């Protein structure tokens, strides 16, 4: 690869990094070039355009993973990128998850800005040692001498009949780990714009793309570019209760809010966007306004991200609540393969509405 090498072994604060040759500076986001006008894209296309823009903006960026080249990725995200950027920058890997994540760490340490694609979150477990014991810990273990500007993208979630070893939502697990940032784009602008910010982050960032969203389409506004990775977003303002969710369940929760609206209930929908760190200000601010909360999380309930959100609300906004926090999660079973069983195991619109109604009744 031809990219310039920027020293990543540094002493002192990030701003004092020793003369990394441009582009770009470690601390400066590599914003994709703004597009001329609004465009309608699928989530898959938005992910792809985000990668394309990042690669055009910074020659240190490259993509590697299984089937990302000729095949265009198992979920079609990288279609056409091999033709544009060539095999040096769109790299098909052996079936060695630990190796290509570890190599991504090494490349990041050497000054590159790797995007590693792991086919599904379940496969990331083969690379968990590299992710947790190395990527997340190296900044600490080196006394700040090394940082790991690595981005790992992976598909998460169920709904496509891929059974109990390809369908889980483990982003909540990853949200447990200090040293990494966890994001879950749920909208077209986030699918496009989170990547640039993630690449500019000096720490490892894990991007969870929900497999059920790839075919969803929406508008990428004119001038869309890098987006922040620090805040949650109110996707629907409301006054009567807060529906808190992220990623693949956002469209369904918005639909549930519309159904509640038809029954005269004005629900606010909060998209967490970033799962670590959680945006406490947004979560608590919304709950203090509405006094009721339902957390919707495709992960398993026990020890889940939804548990963390509910705990924070209880810790910091208990006296603002008019009802106990409710949660809607997946059934605590390995994800079934049969279509109707899988649907029965996942959070549903009816389940969200029922939980909201119960919270509105005071939790009874």
């Amino acid at each position, binding site marked *: 690869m031809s990219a310039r090498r920027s020293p990543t072994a540094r002493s002192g604060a990030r701003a004092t990094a020793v003369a990394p040759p441009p582009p770009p500076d470690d601390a400066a986001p590599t914003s994709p070039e703004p597009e001329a006008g609004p465009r309608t894209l699928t989530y898959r296309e938005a992910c792809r355009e985000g990668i394309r823009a990042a690669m055009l903006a910074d020659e240190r960026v490259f993509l590697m993973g299984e089937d990302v080249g000729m095949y265009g990725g198992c979920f079609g995200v990288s279609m056409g990128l091999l033709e544009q950027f060539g095999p040096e920058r769109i790299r*098909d890997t052996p079936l060695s998850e630990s190796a290509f994540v570890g190599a991504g760490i090494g490349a990041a340490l050497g000054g590159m800005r790797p995007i590693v694609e792991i086919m599904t979150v379940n496969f990331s477990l083969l690379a968990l040692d590299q992710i947790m014991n190395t990527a997340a810990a190296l900044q600490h273990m080196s006394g700040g001498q090394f940082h790991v500007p690595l981005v790992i993208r992976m598909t998460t979630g169920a709904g496509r009949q891929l059974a109990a070893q390809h369908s889980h939502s483990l982003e909540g697990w990853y949200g447990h780990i200090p040293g990494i940032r966890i994001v879950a784009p749920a909208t077209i602008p986030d699918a496009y714009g989170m990547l640039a910010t993630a690449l500019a982050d000096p720490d490892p960032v894990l991007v969870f793309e929900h497999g059920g969203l790839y075919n969803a389409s929406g508008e990428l506004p004119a001038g869309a570019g890098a987006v922040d990775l620090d805040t949650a977003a109110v996707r629907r303002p409301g006054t009567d209760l807060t529906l808190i969710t992220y990623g693949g369940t956002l469209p369904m929760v918005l639909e549930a809010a519309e159904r509640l609206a038809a029954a005269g209930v004005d629900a606010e929908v909060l998209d967490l966007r970033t799962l670590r760190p959680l945006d406490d200000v947004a979560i608590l601010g919304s709950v203090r306004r509405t006094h009721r909360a339902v957390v919707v999380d495709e992960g398993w309930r026990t020890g889940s991200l939804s548990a963390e959100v509910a705990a924070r609300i209880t810790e910091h906004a208990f006296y603002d609540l008019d009802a106990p926090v409710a949660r809607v999660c997946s059934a605590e079973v390995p994800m079934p393969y049969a279509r109707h069983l899988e649907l029965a195991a996942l959070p549903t619109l009816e389940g969200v509405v029922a939980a909201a109604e119960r919270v509105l009744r005071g939790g009874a």
Partner: protein
Amino acid sequence: MAVDGGPELVQLLTPEGVLVEHPDFALALDDDEWRTRYEHLVMVRRLDAEATALQRHGELGLWAPCQGQEAAQVGAALAMRPTERIFPTYREHGMAYVRGVDPVTLLGLFRGTTLGGWDPAEHGFNLYTIVIGDQTLHAVGYAMGAQRDGAAEGVLVCFGDGASSQGDVAEAFVYAAVNDAPVVFFCQNNQWAISEPLERQTRIPLFKRAAGYGFPGVRVDGNDVLAVQAVVTAALERARAGRGPTLVEAFTYRMGAHTTSDDPTRYRTTAEGEAWRLKDPIERVRAHIVRSGIADAAWLGEVEQRAEALGEHMRSACRAMPDPAPASMFEHVYADAHPVIDRERQWLVTYLAGFTDAPTAGAGAGVG
């Protein structure tokens, strides 16, 4: 593209159906044994084609076709004693057939009506493993158990060229080698791991990797049912004698898709498929048995009829499989009753009972 297996390829029956000799491996079959092999190959191809068609008709969620790999699977399974355990991937429909697993049972697995589906002990055939290369370690552990029992017993574990890049497989090689585990690592190199060609996994022939771990490796023509049986038989004898593992690389070709969810025309050429079609595992057996008078047209026709009957049996039995009840998803999470599972099952059952039309798909089970 990899079509030629190179000078070290063990072959006993050429693609033209001519028997050839090899200095290290030999196997003589009588006429009945030849006919059995031919019939197995035809039946396996038919069951695979039928299942692929059923998936296309929406009757199965997925199918992993084994077309092109029939000889590798049938030959290896026939090399084993019925009591010896096979650890398959998810594509060993040919081995399942030889081991007496009803193809309809395989359909149940891919239709989502059964989990597991067959008794591994009854068939000496472990359950399908989806996680790539995972089973190599399980097989080594199982083989070490046989070793401790003092049984003169071999174990065969299947994996593919893609799996050869997995850490689990490397660790299985290490563990089997240092423990002299009586295991045969049976790698069906079908040239493709979804879209990734063999060149993405290795720069030396896979069988040569064995030398680095300290046990023998052999490359056999995976489309030659006779050679596969001969080579696997020798590897098993070595295992039974307490001399440790062998890597057998069956050089073959996945004629179909990785699974029914991918489209191989996106990543490989039709010329490659045509080149491999000339090495078809069934045609060479047919050529041999016809030319040598082991089978005549009438018998070949009977086999076709039996294959057609199998297809019809699979179609009707598949469509008749009932959907499992929604609450069945709570079975088999734990061996015994569990408070979380019991609570969620109760919630779902109560929820579903609230519908007058008894739906089969309920709302999420996780409200509470």
